[in-house]
């Protein structure tokens, strides 16, 4: 409707006219005019005229006040309220014909505040969208899986194999960095392929390689004598893709080796290596056969009568 007041007067806008509703009613009725007539002259609805007369919305647009005075055939000053006009604080906006409630609506926040809220909301949503997009991109940037294989246990002083099998997505050739960290008391020894870097302070070894299909990286580890070790020695590692910022994934699979006086190939700890165990040795750690696994000892135990743990010398003895 054209008679609606803007909620907030803009700079340069003439101030609202505060009218005297009761006087308007008296003038209209005194002149025998209907609300419909007055509403038609002013260009508002009869409901609006009714509200004006009931003093529900004493502040109206100056041009409407002028038209109202013309409709009533009185000077504009005669319909204005005699009390001093209010300050710049906006009056009730019930001049809007669509407002059905008798209570005035709460004042709207200033435009600058609404702009600020909108801007903050926009920025929050933008940041959230970027974060979600980054999360998905890093997930998709890891087209490679890595699985570690470990024996269930190993005695102190006997090297045992650790293999990490890296499998890239089909048809992809992926440069990557494999990092593996061992705890104090456990040493990472020779490797196939050889380590590209070994940091003795952080106890971290690294390979820098390109995986064009399932590729196995192996090394020998050993529990050092006279070093305190937890019952289950943890192994931790990760794969990093140099091309993707922060794209890392932990190495999955086995992540701990128990410390026990049994050969690492003797899975059921019966001081023998049976057919199933020797098949598992070569199936699981076959890629590590280039290492000094002491395979002859394993085969001697398998073909002989087992082994025993020499506690005094802290070593395994094959029983032929």
């Amino acid at each position, binding site marked *: 409707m054209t008679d609606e007041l803007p909620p907030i007067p803009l700079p340069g806008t003439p101030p609202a006219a505060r009218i005297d509703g009761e006087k308007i009613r008296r003038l209209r009725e005194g002149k025998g005019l209907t609300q419909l007539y007055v509403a038609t002259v002013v260009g508002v609805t009869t409901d609006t005229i009714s509200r004006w007369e009931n003093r529900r919305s004493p502040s109206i647009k100056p041009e409407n006040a002028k038209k109202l005075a013309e409709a009533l055939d009185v000077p504009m000053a005669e319909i204005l309220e005699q009390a001093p006009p209010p300050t710049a604080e906006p009056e009730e906006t019930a001049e809007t014909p669509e407002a059905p409630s008798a209570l005035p609506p709460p004042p709207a926040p200033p435009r600058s505040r609404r702009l600020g809220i909108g801007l903050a909301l926009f920025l929050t949503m933008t940041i959230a969208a970027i974060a979600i997009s980054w999360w998905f991109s890093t997930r998709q940037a890891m087209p490679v899986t890595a699985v570690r294989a470990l024996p269930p246990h190993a005695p102190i002083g006997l090297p045992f194999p650790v293999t990490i099998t890296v499998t890239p997505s089909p048809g992809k050739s992926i440069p990557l960095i494999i990092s593996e960290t061992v705890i104090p008391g456990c040493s990472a020894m020779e490797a196939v392929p050889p380590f590209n870097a070994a940091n003795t302070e952080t106890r971290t070894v690294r390979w820098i390689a390109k995986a064009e299909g399932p590729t196995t990286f192996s090394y020998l580890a050993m529990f050092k004598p006279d070093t305190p070790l937890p019952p289950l020695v943890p192994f931790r590692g990760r794969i990093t893709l140099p091309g993707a910022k922060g794209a890392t994934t932990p190495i999955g699979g086995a992540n701990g080796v128990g410390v026990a006086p049994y050969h690492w190939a003797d899975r059921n700890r019966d001081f023998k290596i049976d*057919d*199933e165990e*020797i*098949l*598992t040795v*070569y*199936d699981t750690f*076959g890629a590590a056969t280039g290492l000094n696994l002491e395979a002859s000892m394993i*085969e001697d135990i*398998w*073909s002989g009568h087992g082994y025993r743990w020499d506690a005094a010398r802290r070593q395994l003895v094959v029983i032929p």
Partner: protein
Amino acid sequence: MAPKRSRHARFLVALILLAGLFRTAPVMARELVTCRYLAASGTRIEIELNVGAPPPATLIVMQNLPPDVSVVETSQPVKKFSQRPGEAKWLLMGIRPGITLLGFTLNKAIRPGQISGEMLYNAPDSGVMVRMPFSP
């Protein structure tokens, strides 16, 4: 009605048997390694291994022998040979798909019914150990 119903029952049984045959055929075809004797008597024994792809990493062939018989010579490729009374074992590694022959010579001649064998390997796809006996 009864003969007709009987014919229907026979047809149904035949259908089920036929379906069973088709179902078991692929399972039999999936045997990755088969083993048979080419020679199973005298002093020279020959075993043929037919290996599919992908081959198992390691294969164990176990040969049961009469108590007083021992292996005096064995052919390549043999990773490890182990002999106990009445038993000989081969640990074969690096096997390629196709036919592999395993031959050995005994200290005494034997009759065909006196020997039998067993083959063991871990299935490459599942890791499950397969144990397969064979005899002449």
